[in-house]
């Protein structure tokens, strides 16, 4: 099914390698039983996010363009879906691949890109305000910080470094 929809028409904005990637996550084995959605805490709490429906779209060869408002960003990466799936479809892996495409296209929610900013600034995803005081309060010394220069050098040429939190 790579690269074409069920009628053999070439697919929209996404590259063929994304289809290959999605197929490798087991999409063709999905028979829409919805155990993934039943096990999903985000589906339960939001009533909006529905991994089964997203996979149905992909099965039909429709690759929705991921926007920053897309429900796919409500996936919390808990892997409950994968524990529940009787066909070993890598549901969380699929939600991840779709979001990677969204980020590449400059479309990710601020809640996510804010974390990327923190990571690129210090090598940690943490706000460092008030840390010393919090640590002193429980009798601990200074917090050890990673070698950020080395990390920036390592991330040279990645999407993360190029886009950072800048979208």
């Amino acid at each position, binding site marked *: 099914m790579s690269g074409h929809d069920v009628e053999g028409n070439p697919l929209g904005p996404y590259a063929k390698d994304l289809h290959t990637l999605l197929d490798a996550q087991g999409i063709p084995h999905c028979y829409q039983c919805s155990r993934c959605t039943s096990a999903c805490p985000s589906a339960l709490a939001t009533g909006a996010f529905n991994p089964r429906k997203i996979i149905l779209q992909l099965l039909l060869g429709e690759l929705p363009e991921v926007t920053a408002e897309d429900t796919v960003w*409500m996936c919390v*990466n808990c892997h409950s879906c994968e*524990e529940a799936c009787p066909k070993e479809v890598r549901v969380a892996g699929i939600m991840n691949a779709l979001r990677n495409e969204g980020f590449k296209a400059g479309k990710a929610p601020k809640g996510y890109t804010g*974390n990327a900013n923190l990571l690129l600034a210090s090598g940690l995803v943490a706000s460092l305000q008030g840390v010393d005081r919090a640590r002193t*309060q429980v009798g601990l010394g200074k917090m050890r910080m990673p070698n950020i220069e080395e990390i920036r050098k390592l991330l040279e040429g990645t999407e*993360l470094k190029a886009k950072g939190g800048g979208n």
Partner: protein
Amino acid sequence: MGGRYALMLGCLIPSRLPQIEAACRRVFPLLGAEFDDNFDFSCCPNSPFIKPLDKEAWLTMAARNLSLVEEAGLTIATPCPGCSNTLLEAKHELDHDKELKARVNERLKNIDREYKGKANVRHLLQVLVEDLGLKKVEAIVKTPLKLKVAAHYGCHLLKPSKVMGFEEPFTAHSLEDLTKVVGGEPVEYENRDLCCGLVLGSTHLDGSLDLAHRKFSSAKAAGADALLVTCPTCFLQFDTGQMRAAKKFGADYSIPVLYFAQLIGLAAGLTDKDMGLHAHRTKTTTVVDALKGR
């Protein structure tokens, strides 16, 4: 059996929840584990936010963290399931995909490092249960902690189960076992295996609080005196986020949150101050009262 481990604290614990770090540093040596702090770990990086943006960058940073301990031949031990999940998932992918491993190593070459695949990773609860053994805890308990405890395993400690290689998610019992060993009573409650909801807060705050509310109400209905966690994210949601959920749902849960190392420390006669209970946002009165009984 004791052992020496490379300690990887992650981000949230040393910065925002240092009481968890303090508890681990004060409790684990009593059980025979020794921590080596001499490794330049960065963020693992976190799987709910960084992996969805750029998986390859996520893998590359994880590979760097793993490579740091290969020469020393130490197992990485971490108090954070986010860290153990990221590192074990990355290890799984790198060890099963030669092409990917070569690509990541190409990047690591820029900083004169290489990922060979020799490192192992364990969450501290797994270290406790599998390496040290709960008998070690039994041996240091001074006075039983008569508390009713609701165990919350969270997501990443156990899932995906094939990669994490610890207990099965729906039948896990190590936290309940630990509770019994320190003299407490594990409560059975609805929603034990539900996600804490913190990550959802970045895209759907109402949904995030809804999950927390389900958790608090069912733990409360089962008569729990405390929620027992293994994860800084869950800790933040349940401790700091409790007031917010209480306000939204007009409820009074008043249920203290304990990281599992704190539970051990308290039972072993360390003080509530040693365990950093004064740094909690939700009052720990029920826990401190139970201590006074000894």
